[in-house]
């Protein structure tokens, strides 16, 4: 076996190691079948819609639909009852735009014969594709977003300028078919150049190409109409799927859903929108605060990104410089400041950090800024880390976005913007049973999501609480990236482990030999011994327990198939290396 095939099949081997002795595993590796699709959440605090709260009510879910909500709702004979006295029920969150659940096939770079005039797919022009064949309920972002409370999204395929038609996708289900609520509500578009040295390779070409596609589609529509009126004496109109797919856009029936964060791209898209006059959905808007007045004149649903700039790290540790947003700032960035000599470099540095903080501040405030300007928007998770969604929302609220507006932007507003408000967005009788059940106010610091219902299907997270390990001792001894070598009877497997967090708790990721990433569970550290568990994608789990000494560790990885020695070495730590 060569090194490269090892890399390719390495993780499979790990899975094999886990499955060598299936008889031991079989006792636990099975799905307990669900015996009923009827649920009753009893005595819960129900936030039916932003600002509309029932203090103690029962929510009955049956066959994927909310059957009853109210303090007098009867618990049906076939219900699985969930005692929800201390729980809060929200409508399931709606993701305005994402690629959750999408697994695009690996494309191999093919040589394009004439890069100046490439075939449509090489140019990234694939509006005839649908996201449907690329959906998988097992995709990891989908699962993480669901755990954060998202139950449905406006999901598009990945690609370049015109990657294909989107779908309204449930963030749950057993099969890809379960996931689809509606197909082709929009066509996804972005100012994205083609892969490789192929036309369109610049933004100007992408925009020119859009314009060209529209013009040609329009022409073909006219030819089609004329031919239909009277085919005699006319040649058949030209046909191809790329142009035909644009007809509903020209007819004003299907919007183009653009994603862009940068202010310049947003301006370009809006200019194109004005020129070609297509129905628009605009997602991203990361620099939306820069063009508030422009956006006020645009008639389109907006979805604001849930990705915020991270705090920069400095050689001295994390930069905690805060922008002073009071009316009379005690310190402020001076654009004129110049360090007159090397002795005042520190002043220049402080000035620069203050500038960074102010700049960041504008981004953190974007949601509030848009809200204050009277713009309504939902959210998009496309660029967001699913695990950070709640803290991002908290930041937005701290920066002035009203809590009710934040909740509306997760529920009622996207439902209306996507044309789904007759079925989604609130906890009301007759709506689709998409629910988020938390153990406190969703935006509260210590709150965790207990249950998520997606199309009436229950995902239970209430027992996940015990998944955090105990941490004591100096965590800096383990933080960072480690390379590991696992000795198995089939040969050595190696990859990386990243440990993150702090004294309050550790987490991290385990990168398999194949590059496949798995989150660490139950990470605990007592100053010398580090232990954690990793679930294998093939089923089963690996428990790793190692002794850390300086920048190396040694220990064992146990699976149900036996224990294997594992050793590792720290390749980078947050203190030693900078991004």
């Amino acid at each position, binding site marked *: 076996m060569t090194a490269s095939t090892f890399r390719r099949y390495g993780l499979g081997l790990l899975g094999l190691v886990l499955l060598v002795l299936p008889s031991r595993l079989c006792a*636990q590796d099975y799905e*307990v*079948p669900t*015996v009923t699709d009827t649920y009753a959440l009893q005595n819960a605090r129900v936030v039916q819609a932003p600002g509309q709260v029932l203090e103690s009510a029962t929510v009955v879910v049956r066959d994927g639909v909310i059957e009853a909500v109210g303090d007098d709702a009867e618990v049906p*004979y076939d219900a699985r009852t969930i005692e929800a006295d201390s729980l809060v029920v929200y409508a399931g969150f709606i993701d305005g735009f994402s690629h959750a659940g999408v697994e695009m096939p690996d494309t191999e770079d093919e040589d394009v014969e004439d890069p100046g005039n490439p075939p449509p797919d090489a140019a990234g022009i694939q509006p005839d594709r649908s996201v449907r064949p690329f959906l998988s309920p097992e995709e990891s972002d989908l699962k993480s977003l669901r755990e954060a409370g998202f139950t449905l999204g406006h999901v598009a395929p990945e690609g370049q300028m015109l990657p294909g038609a989107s779908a309204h996708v449930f963030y749950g289900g057993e099969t890809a078919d379960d996931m689809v609520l509606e197909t082709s509500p929009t066509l996804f578009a972005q100012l994205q150049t083609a892969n490789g040295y192929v036309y369109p390779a610049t933004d100007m070409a992408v925009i020119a190409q859009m314009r060209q596609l529209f013009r040609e589609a329009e022409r073909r529509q006219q030819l089609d109409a004329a031919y239909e009126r009277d085919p005699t004496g006319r040649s058949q109109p030209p046909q191809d799927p790329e142009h035909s797919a644009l007809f509903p856009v020209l007819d004003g029936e299907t919007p183009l859903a653009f994603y862009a964060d940068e202010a310049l791209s947003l301006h370009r898209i809006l200019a194109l929108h004005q020129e070609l006059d297509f129905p628009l959905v605009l997602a991203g808007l990361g620099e939306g605060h820069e063009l508030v007045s422009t956006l006020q004149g645009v008639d389109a649903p907006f979805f604001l990104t849930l990705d915020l700039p991270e705090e920069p790290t400095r050689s001295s540790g994390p930069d905690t410089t805060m922008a002073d947003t009071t009316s009379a700032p005690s310190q402020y960035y001076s654009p004129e400041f110049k360090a007159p000599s090397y002795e005042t470099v520190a002043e220049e540095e402080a000035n620069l950090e203050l500038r960074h903080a102010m700049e960041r501040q504008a981004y953190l405030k974007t949601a509030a800024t848009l809200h204050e300007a009277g713009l309504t928007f939902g959210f998009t998770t496309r660029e967001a880390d699913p695990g950070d969604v709640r803290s991002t929302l908290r930041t937005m609220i701290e920066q002035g976005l009203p809590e009710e507006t934040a909740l509306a932007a997760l529920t009622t507003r996207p439902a209306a913007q996507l044309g789904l408000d007759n079925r989604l967005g609130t906890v009301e009788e007759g709506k689709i049973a998409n629910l988020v059940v938390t153990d406190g106010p969703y935006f509260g610091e210590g709150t965790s999501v207990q249950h998520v219902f997606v199309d009436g299907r229950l995902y239970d997270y209430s027992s996940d609480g015990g998944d955090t390990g105990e941490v004591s001792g100096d965590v800096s001894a383990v933080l960072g990236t480690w390379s590991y070598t696992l000795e198995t009877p089939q040969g050595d497997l190696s990859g990386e482990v990243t440990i993150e967090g702090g004294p309050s708790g550790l987490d991290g990721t385990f990168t398999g030999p194949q590059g496949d990433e798995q989150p660490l569970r139950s990470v605990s550290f007592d100053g010398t011994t580090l232990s954690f568990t990793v679930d294998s994608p093939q089923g089963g789990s690996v428990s790793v327990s190692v002794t850390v000494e300086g920048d190396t560790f040694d220990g064992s990885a146990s699976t149900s198939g036996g224990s294997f020695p594992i050793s590792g070495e720290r390749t980078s730590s947050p203190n030693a290396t900078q991004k």
Partner: protein
Amino acid sequence: MLSPSRPRPLSVSAGLTLLVALLLTLPAHAQKQPGYQGPFALTNAQVIVAPGDTLDRGTVVVQGDSIAAVGPDVSVPSDAQAFDLSGQRVYPGFIDSGTHLGLAEIGSLPETQDFNEVGNLTAHMNALAAVNPSTVHVPTTRVHGITSVITEPENGILPGTSALIGLHGYTPEQMHLGDVTLTKLNFPSVGRQGPSDDRSPETIQTEAEKALSKLNELWSEAKRYARIDSAVAEQPEARRQPEFVPAMEGLLPVIRGEQPLMISANAAADISTALDWAEERGVLDQVILSGALEGWRVADEIATADVPVLVGSIMQPPSRESDRYDKAYRTPALLHDAGVTVALRSGKTENVRNLVFHAGFAAAHGLGKTEALRAITTNPARIFGVADQVGTIEAGKRANLFVANGDPLQPATDVQHLFIDGYKLPLENRATKLYDEFLNRNPGLTK
């Protein structure tokens, strides 16, 4: 389980032709005569009415499918076929409390293994449905006086139901004895599984906790299914049937307390966990423990729980290297001494007949002859709730009995006659046919 690679049966006409050809050309190789019912009178025999209750010289009268009379001065009906059995003994038919008999034919041919269904939750599989009444292993088993066995499915956590079958009949239903059906649960392993199990203690613990919580979840779902099912039965018009979940449907009789739960567990930790588990779920009185090779370590616990045990196979080395060589042989005795009701199981397919030697080993290793006999007659009959039908030679019971020329637990003893449900069955089988042929080889091995 019909595996796709199994050869299709011959077409009916081809089968008939073959059958006719066989009948015409090979009469000597076919079973000489089928079983037939009496009346029979077994006279002048020593009658082991029940273990510990011997009639030194008596007569047993078999009429129809049952025992008409037993005693020293029983009159022989005039139409009865009488056997003078001076110097011979009549025993109640033996019961093996755990086999794959009828579910497997040839060990090396996976196509003939019908006790291993794929999947973990197959509680709705009934072993009885797969029993092949004409398996060659049934006649081979009968030669040692075994007249009934439990035949059980194997794979997964809930492999299905086991059935008690009599070893005569041409359909599974004819063979089913007393409608005895037991739901089997392979209890998940919670401890170290042997010397080759090198998992770390933490791994063992987390995996055990996971397995148990999964089982608990399964059980509460099954209870919920039963509750919904009952609710629908109350108002069938107003309420709708729950979605059919076969495994849950299979568990209904257990949840409702109508069917015993046969829990298979061997390690001491598994047995105690299983008993606690069953008590918490209120099903302890339905539990029958099967396997229990380390049962002697927790014998008092089992006795306190008042759970009967189907022990075996005891013909194996002890589970831990530190144990005495004879711990497995001694397990039935140790359990019995603690006050546990013990029955024996061979756990075999082709060698179920060796049950008598298992009993012999148990007898020699502390259990004693009488208790060893009970472990293959009256005890299993009581455990399976058919003590009114089998297990002893008493008037009114099914005529399941056999005649031997000595102690049937001894290898040198031969069984002379055997009756199941009053049918006197020929004792020839594949092994005796081969024996006869090769004893009289012609032309022999002269060249």
